[in-house]
C-alpha cells in the first residue's frame, strides 16, 4: 500500500508544482524586466515585494514543500533502483527525508524573515 500512496503523491505534487511554479516564474520574469526583479530594494517591482504579499509568499512556501517532496522522492526512487538491500533502502529513505526537511526548514525561515523585512 505505501509505495502506491507515495507514487500518487508524486503525481499530485507534480501537477501542483505546475501551478505554484507558474506563479513563481511569472513574478520573477513577466511582471517586470529581469534586472528590476533582482534588486534588493523593496521597490514595487522587485523580488522582495513578492515576500510582502501574504498570498504570494504562501505560494512560495507551497512551492518549497512540493518541490522538496517531489524532487527528493525522485532521488530516492533513482537511488533505490540502483542497488537493493534492507539497510541500504532504509538509509536512502532516511537521508533523503532529512535533507528535504532541512531544506524546507531553511527555506521557510527565509520566507518568514523576508516577509517581515519587506513589511518594515
Amino acid at each position, binding site marked *: 500500500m505505501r509505495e502506491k500512496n507515495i507514487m500518487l503523491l508524486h503525481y499530485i505534487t507534480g501537477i501542483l508544482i505546475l501551478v505554484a511554479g507558474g506563479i513563481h516564474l511569472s513574478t520573477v520574469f513577466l511582471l517586470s524586466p529581469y534586472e528590476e526583479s533582482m534588486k534588493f530594494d523593496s521597490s514595487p517591482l522587485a523580488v522582495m515585494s513578492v515576500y510582502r504579499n501574504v498570498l504570494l509568499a504562501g505560494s512560495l512556501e507551497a512551492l518549497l514543500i512540493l518541490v522538496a517532496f517531489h524532487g527528493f522522492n525522485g532521488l530516492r526512487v533513482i537511488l533505490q533502483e540502483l542497488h537493493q538491500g534492507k539497510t541500504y533502502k532504509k538509509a536512502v529513505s532516511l537521508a533523503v527525508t532529512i535533507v528535504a526537511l532541512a531544506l524546507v526548514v531553511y527555506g521557510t525561515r*527565509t520566507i518568514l524573515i523576508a516577509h517581515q523585512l519587506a513589511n518594515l
Partner: protein
Amino acid sequence: MPFRYGLERWSYTLQRVSGVAITLFFVAHIVQTGNVVGGASVWSIPPYEFAKKVWTETEAFLANPLFDLGLSVLGFLIFFHAFNGVRLVLAHFGIILKKPSRPEYPYRPGSMSQAQRALFWVTIVLAVAALVYALDVFFEVLRL
C-alpha cells in the same frame, strides 16, 4: 548503448537527468535565496544593511555569464520535465494510450499512440521556446 529503443526511452532518460539536475539546482537555489535575508547565520530579522550587503555580494558572485547559461539550460530542463511529466501522468493512467486490440502485423503498439508521441513533441517545442526566452533575457539574443 540504448540509442535505438525509440522515443519513449529517450523521454525516460531525459526526464531522469532533468529531474536530478533540477533537484540539485533547487538545493543551490534555496541556499542562494537564503542570502536575500542575510545567510545561514540569520534566524531573526537582521539589520537591513547587513541583509542588503550579503545579497549584493551574492548577486555579484552570480553575475557570471556561465551561471546565466546554466540557468537557460535549466529553463529548458524545467519546461521539459514539467510538460513531459504531464504527458507521463496521462500515459501512466492509460488516458492517452490506445485500447488493447488483437495484434496485426506490422505491429503498432497501442502504448506508442500518436497522442502520446505528439505530446512529447509539443513538450520539446515548449522547452526549446523556454530556452530561447531565457537566452534572450540573459544575453539579449533576440531582444524580444
